[in-house]
């Protein structure tokens, strides 16, 4: 949550700005409706931190296009912290909230939403977390940025932007809700990261 110490200018390159992010989310909303033939039985679950505001925007876009959709009733958050496979390798993580729409996920089509798809490990954890909540009819994945370097056989169904990166680079997603403005930045090798 704390503001980044490093200034975003200099070595950081902005690859998506606010209009591009907005257009990507509009397109993804249409793709979701097209693939699922409407919004019947859809549940949109955001993975905290930045997947959550993205899920809210996506649900708002769905509601704007499809009549009879109440964005608040289909949006939820899915915290995957307790399902991660790397807990023992990092300092203790704070657990986020998991809030599922009142109807649950049984028999629904769950659209998972995250900001960046990278190793795929977060999504693996999310799939485990979902199976403890119920049995959805299908699970689909929407991400704003796919930067490659998968370590597991996982792919996204809806991608805002495919971003070829080196694993030494760092992709940073900024959202108005959490960071004060929208933007996707690529930063050069910094020595940290994975």
């Amino acid at each position: 949550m704390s503001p980044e110490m490093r200034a975003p200018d200099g070595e950081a390159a902005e690859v998506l700005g606010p209009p591009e992010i907005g257009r990507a989310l509009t397109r993804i909303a249409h793709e979701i409706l097209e693939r699922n033939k409407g919004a019947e039985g859809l549940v949109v679950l955001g993975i905290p931190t930045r997947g959550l505001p993205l899920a809210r925007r996506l649900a708002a876009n769905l509601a704007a296009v499809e009549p009879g959709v109440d964005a608040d009733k289909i949006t939820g958050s899915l915290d995957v912290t307790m399902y991660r496979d790397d807990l023992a390798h990092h300092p203790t993580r704070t657990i986020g909230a998991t809030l599922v729409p009142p109807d649950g996920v049984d028999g629904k089509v769950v659209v998972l939403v995250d900001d960046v798809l990278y190793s795929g490990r977060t999504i693996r954890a999310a799939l485990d977390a979902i199976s403890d909540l119920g049995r959805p009819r299908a699970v689909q994945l929407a991400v704003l940025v796919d930067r490659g370097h998968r370590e597991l056989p996982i792919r996204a169904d809806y991608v805002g932007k495919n971003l070829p990166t080196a694993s030494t680079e760092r992709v940073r997603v900024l959202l108005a809700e959490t960071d004060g403005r929208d933007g996707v930045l690529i930063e050069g090798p910094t020595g940290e990261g994975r």
Partner: protein
Amino acid sequence: MRHLLSAKDLSHDEAVLILDTAAQMAATQAREIKKLPTLRGRTVVNLFFEDSTRTRISFETAAKRLSADVLNFSAKGSSVSKGESLKDTAQTLQAMGADAVVVRHQSSGAPHRLAYAGWIDCPVVNAGDGTHQHPTQSLLDAFTIRRHLAGGTGDLAGLHVAIVGDVLHSRVARSNVDLLTTLGARVTLVAPPTLLPVGVEAWPAAISYHLDEALADGPDAVMMLRVQRERMSSAGGGFFPSGQEYSRLYGLDQRRLDTLADHAIVMHPGPMNRGLEISADAADSPRSVVVEQVANGVAVRMAVLYLLLAGAQAPAVADDEMKVLA
């Protein structure tokens, strides 16, 4: 936070973090599938040198809900009854690969000794030592108070809690005075002078010898303590003339219950002596949160085990570095 030995060691922010984590844990316990994979492969040892029902079962449930393996060790029926020392017992557990030790002991300070003597190399959680501390009990009490009276978030600033009864023998009272005041609540201890320890005036709490006066002050929560007869000699052991007199002066009955504010809750760490410090009317009234305290105990202990065990055993790293790794 490497060990949890005393409620006094917790800073305001650490205590709030534990309560926030416990709230997320409690949410998972309302699900059909309550088990989480978080501590898979870790081993938690319950080392109980003193009798306990709910604390041991609560820790065992908490560890199992997080998928940890649990070894239960009680002094009865073990080599301790053959005279094995705490050190040798601890080293045996270390050799068996314990990742955390939950210890209850009749001697005050035993968990501290275990944590810092260099015998074992894993987190130690105090589950009650002598008349010293019982930090997870105070955390679950704070969690219960927060949920009922503070909207379930933040701290307990501005709330008033009366702790009534056998303060002298009570580690629950000591832990609660420390934790509740850390969280911003005001605490009043109510007990006969014989059941208050020497030096109690130095505690960050007000003291009253009269329950009716204390209740007239309008506490938001009333915590009744068990009269610990096993720590007294027969029939009160000179601490009070008779059970009937204690009950009349310091027992929570229907009449006293009726004087409480509408929002006030009644708590008891259990096991209850019905008819002594609390009447059946009070124990079973809608204000009583005794059963909920037990349920909250599991969530709080899950939070403590998560925070002590899940992360890397390394010094804390700044927040923004964690995001890089996320």
